[in-house]
């Protein structure tokens, strides 16, 4: 299926040397590689769900470009990341392995984020300061302000990136967090992945405005809307926001327009609430197909490299699946431990 989409992308003969922003050609191909890995892994997880092996999946398909480009504009050794549940590409881009992630979806022993206590992708990253404590939508936003406040107090030039969907913007917590961050000029990048749906509720029932970024002015911070299928646009907006944050100039709201190519989660059926037309149009905004077209146009990708990238992704995911499935389940004797500092 990915190959189909890829081959449908037109290929042009002449392309300028790609130096958009500070992204190099190899950056672009690297991002494509990560997006492909994410896509192949995502499809595998969906399959494992349909096989009854993964209890729940929230697919990142459609959000890959936005996530990979944002990650690329940050520094995992320095910055903080408060993600939400639809961040498979972010997790890969920041260094988690498919095996680690699959252990989460399959709840296997050694799962690094939460020891299998939480839904997949929830918990804390084993190496980067990335975490997601709760499924309750919106709670991460004030927390991000707090993380950034601590950095500011210590005089550390780090950015705190907080990820959320359009749905989360309706929560009181979103308002309170943005307001506080703006008052104290905190180094926060508010990153809204606007896929126009909160499960089944379309944007028109979530807000009477067109773009979430329009709210930024009401807090006294810059807000921008970018095409979330355009890695360069996202990267540039993110790079500016991260620089602003680390430079002590305060928060920024970035709204990346993306599509949710799959239903909300594996428990959902989007044909109940999305029109055939909407679904068809949304399919046309596949960020992987879009980047592929661009790379081919710029002669950064040809059939050989394309084949190599997809084959490698599949090989990695196959191997990780095997390894994850071979692992056992977490030791039940452990289930009450590590609730308090003592114990």
């Amino acid at each position, binding site marked *: 299926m990915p190959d189909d989409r890829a081959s449908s992308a037109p290929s042009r003969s002449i392309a300028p040397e790609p130096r958009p922003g500070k992204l190099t050609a190899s950056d672009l191909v690297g991002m494509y590689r990560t997006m492909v890995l994410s896509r192949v892994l995502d499809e595998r997880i969906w399959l494992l769900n349909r096989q009854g092996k993964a209890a729940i999946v929230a697919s990142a398909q459609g959000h890959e470009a936005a996530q990979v480009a944002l990650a690329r504009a940050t520094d995992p050794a320095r910055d903080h990341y408060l993600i939400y549940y639809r961040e498979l590409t972010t997790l890969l881009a920041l260094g988690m392995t498919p095996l680690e992630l699959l252990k989460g979806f399959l709840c296997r022993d050694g*799962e690094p984020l*939460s020891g*299998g*206590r*939480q*839904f997949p992708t929830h918990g804390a990253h084993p190496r980067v300061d990335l975490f997601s404590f709760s499924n309750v939508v919106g709670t991460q936003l004030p927390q991000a302000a707090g993380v950034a406040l601590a950095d500011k107090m210590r005089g550390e030039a780090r950015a705190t990136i907080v990820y959320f969907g359009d*749905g989360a913007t309706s929560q009181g917590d979103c308002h309170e967090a943005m307001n506080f961050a703006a008052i104290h000029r905190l180094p926060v990048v508010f990153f809204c992945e606007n896929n126009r749906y909160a*499960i089944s509720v379309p944007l028109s*029932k979530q807000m009477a405005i067109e773009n979430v970024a329009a709210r930024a002015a009401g807090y006294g911070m810059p807000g921008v809307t970018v095409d979330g299928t355009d890695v360069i646009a996202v990267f540039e907006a993110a790079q500016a926001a991260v620089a602003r944050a680390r430079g002590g100039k305060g928060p920024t709201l970035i709204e990346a327009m993306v599509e949710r190519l799959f239903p909300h989660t594996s428990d959902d059926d989007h044909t109940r609430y999305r029109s055939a037309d909407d679904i068809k149009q949304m399919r046309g905004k596949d960020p992987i197909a879009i980047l592929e077209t661009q790379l081919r146009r710029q002669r950064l990708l040809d059939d050989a490299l394309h084949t190599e990238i997809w084959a490698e992704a599949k090989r990695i995911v196959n191997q990780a699946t095997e390894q994850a499935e071979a692992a056992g389940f977490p*030791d039940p004797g452990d289930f009450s431990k590590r609730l308090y500092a003592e114990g």
Partner: protein
Amino acid sequence: MPVMTVIEAVREAMREEMRRDSRVFIMGEDIGARGGVFLATDGFLQEFGEQRVIDTPLAESSIAGIAIGAAVNGMRPIAEIEFADFVWPAMNQIVGVASRIRYGTNGTKFAPMVVRMPYGGGVRGGLYHSQTIDVVFAHQPGLIVIAPSTPYDAKGLLKAAIRCDDPVVFLEHKRTYRLVKGDVPAEDYVLPIGRADVKRQGADLTAVTYGLMVHYCLEAARKLEAEGIEVEVVDLRTLAPLDRETFLESVRKTSKAIVVHEDYHTYGVGAEIAATIAQDAFHDLDAPVVRLTGPDVPAMPFAPTLEAEFMLSPEKIASAMRELAAY
């Protein structure tokens, strides 16, 4: 009589009340075209239209607050919280405000609203789709808290809740939704709020419980029957106001009591039941009241092995009953 699941009974109750009373409307996340994440409102948008089936933004505090406003202005909102775990942002409106409107206006205003929410574990919901949240509501004067276990009770009590002039928190154990089936009369009926129900008669010991655990206790009781132990199972059905008389009467007969619930042990619903029994049936008791509950660990870990460790089961309950019977 038609046989229904719990979720069907919930749906029928709402549908009948919406047909009967134009003041009744529903609001919540994904209840419209989606029909609710558990399909409790499947088909409602088509039948009742967008005016009475309102897909809200993702904002629980306002869901409760808007319901309050509509209720005091003459409507009968049914607000759905998608999962009980997500009701915390709405606590200020439900517990802080709705519960006190009648009291705080000396009886001149009141809020006839129902806040429905699926709760409970055993569905691989992990830490944020498994919580039991009953005691937080049940402790607050001014709220009515209902937690039915069967389709019959769910329908009769939900209809009563919708007609009730006080705010009702209606807790639906999500594991019972499709698991539990039962007879439900086709005709209109309501059940009294605030009455427990003896789901099984027995002379040897009393199990006081509610929600999914009613079914586990009944299963355990059937196991013990084979061993010659007769367990009486009292289903509280309403947690507030609490029907003390029904379980006290049972304990006075059996002289032994076990309280079973899925929620945390310490400061859980079971504490009130056990304390009440120990106080008001002090001289009738042949053994200390046993509390068999969920552990004091966040509800509940996601991995199947960990979740199984957290959850009670008919087997665990049967063995606690066996021990109590032998006391």
